[in-house]
C-alpha cells in the first residue's frame, strides 16, 4: 500500500485516489469542545463529529436515552489527514485524552480530491 502522494490504485484508470489516514476518536461529550479547539490549533484541514448512542468500556456502560447531563456521553470525531501529519496530531490528542476515558484508532483510507487534506 502506498502512503505517498502518488495515486493509490494503479489498477483503476478513471479516477485517481490518494492514500491518507483516518483518525477515529471516541471521546466524552464534555471534552469535545476542548478536542475540537485542539484540532483547530493543530490546523488539521477538517473533521466531522458523529453522535454516539450508547457504549461500554472499562468504566462501565452508558446509554444516551434520557440522560439529562452530557456527562458520561460519547461522541465520535472523524478526522482524515495526511500520513505525514499523523504523529503531530496523535501526540497532543493523546496528551489531552490521557486522563479522560476514550479510544483513538488510526486506519488507512484513500480519498478523491487531494486538495482537501
Amino acid at each position, binding site marked *: 500500500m502506498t502512503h505517498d502522494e502518488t495515486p493509490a490504485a494503479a489498477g483503476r484508470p478513471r479516477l485517481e485516489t490518494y492514500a491518507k489516514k483516518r483518525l477515529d476518536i471516541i471521546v466524552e461529550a464534555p*471534552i469535545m469542545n476542548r478536542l475540537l479547539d485542539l484540532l483547530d490549533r493543530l490546523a488539521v484541514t477538517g473533521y466531522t463529529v458523529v453522535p454516539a448512542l450508547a457504549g461500554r468500556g472499562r*468504566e462501565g456502560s452508558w446509554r444516551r*436515552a434520557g*440522560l*439529562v*447531563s*452530557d*456527562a*458520561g456521553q460519547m461522541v465520535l470525531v472523524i478526522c482524515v489527514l495526511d500520513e505525514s501529519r499523523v504523529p503531530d496530531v496523535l501526540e497532543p490528542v493523546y496528551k489531552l485524552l490521557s486522563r479522560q476515558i476514550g479510544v483513538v484508532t488510526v486506519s488507512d483510507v484513500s480519498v478523491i480530491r487531494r486538495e482537501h487534506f
Partner: protein
Amino acid sequence: MLDLVLANLTSPIVLFFALGLAAALARSDLAVPEAVAKALALYLMMAIGFKGGASVAGHGVDARLIGAVVAGALLSFSIPWIAFQILQRTTRLPKLDAAAVAAHYGSISIVTFVAASESVRLSGLVAEGYLVAVAAVMEAPAILTALWLAQSARKAAGRGADGDDAEPQGALLREILLNGSIVLLAGAFLIGWITGDRGLEIVSPFLVAPFQGVLCLFLLDMGLVAGRGLRSGWRELKGPVLAFGLYMPLVGASLAALVSLPLGLSAGGTALLITLAASASYIAVPAAMRLALPEARPAIYLTLSLGVTFPFNLTLGIPLYIALAEALP
C-alpha cells in the same frame, strides 16, 4: 407530618418517577429520547427562572433577599468540605472520587427544589420567589471547593498542581460558570425580573400552566435514568457510601436550618433553603467533574446523587424538611 408524607408519596410526580424506576429495573425498553430530555430540562430551567424573577419584580429587592443569597453561597462553599471529611472518615473512596461526590452535595438539584415548592404550596405555606436566585447562586461554589480539595489531594500525593497537560484554571472556571443550565436559569430569572407581571402573563400559558404535567414527564425520565444507573452502578456502592447518600442530605439540611435562623425567611422559604442544601446536583456538577476531575468515576457520583439521594429527598426528605422549617422558631 405522616399526612404530608403520604400526600407526597401519592403525588403524580413521585408516582411517575416510580414508574420510570420500575420500568428501568425491569429492563423495559421505555425511553425518553435524549433530545427531548434535554428540552424538558431547558423548559424547567426557563420556567423556574422566569417565575422566580417575575416574583422578585413584584416584591422588590431587600436585605432579606441579599441575606438569603449570601447564606446560600456560604452553604454551597462549605457543605462539600464537610462531605469530604465524612467520606474520608467513613469510606475507602479515593480522594478524587470523594471530592467529586462532595461537589454534588454542595450544589443543588433544581427538580428537588421544584418538587419541594409544590409540597410547600400544598401545605398551605408561601415561599419567597427569590429563592430561585438562591438556587442559581448555589449551583457553582461547591465545584470550586471540590476543585480545591482535589488539588490539595493531588499535591499531597506529589502530583503537582494539576499536571502540565491540564487546562489553565481560568478556562476551566469559565467552562463551569457558563454551563448551559446555569446560564439559562440565571438568564430567565433576569428576564422575568425585567418584564415582571406583564412578561409572566405572556409566557404563562406555556411556562406556568402546563408546568406540573411537564414535570411528570421529566420525572418519568429521571426514574428511567436512575433505574438504569442503579442497575449498572449498584455494585460500586458499598455500604458506607450508600449510607452517605441517605444521611448526607440530613447533614446539609441541619446546617441550612441553623444558617436560616437569622435570615427572617418565611417557613416556606426556610423549607426551600433547607431542601436546596439537602439536595445533590445531577446536571451541572457531573458535567463539570468530567472536565475538571476526569479521574473521578461517574458511576459513583451519578448513582449516589440520582439513584439514592434524589429518590430519598423526593419521598421522605421533603416532608421532613417542611416539618423542620415549621418547627424552627
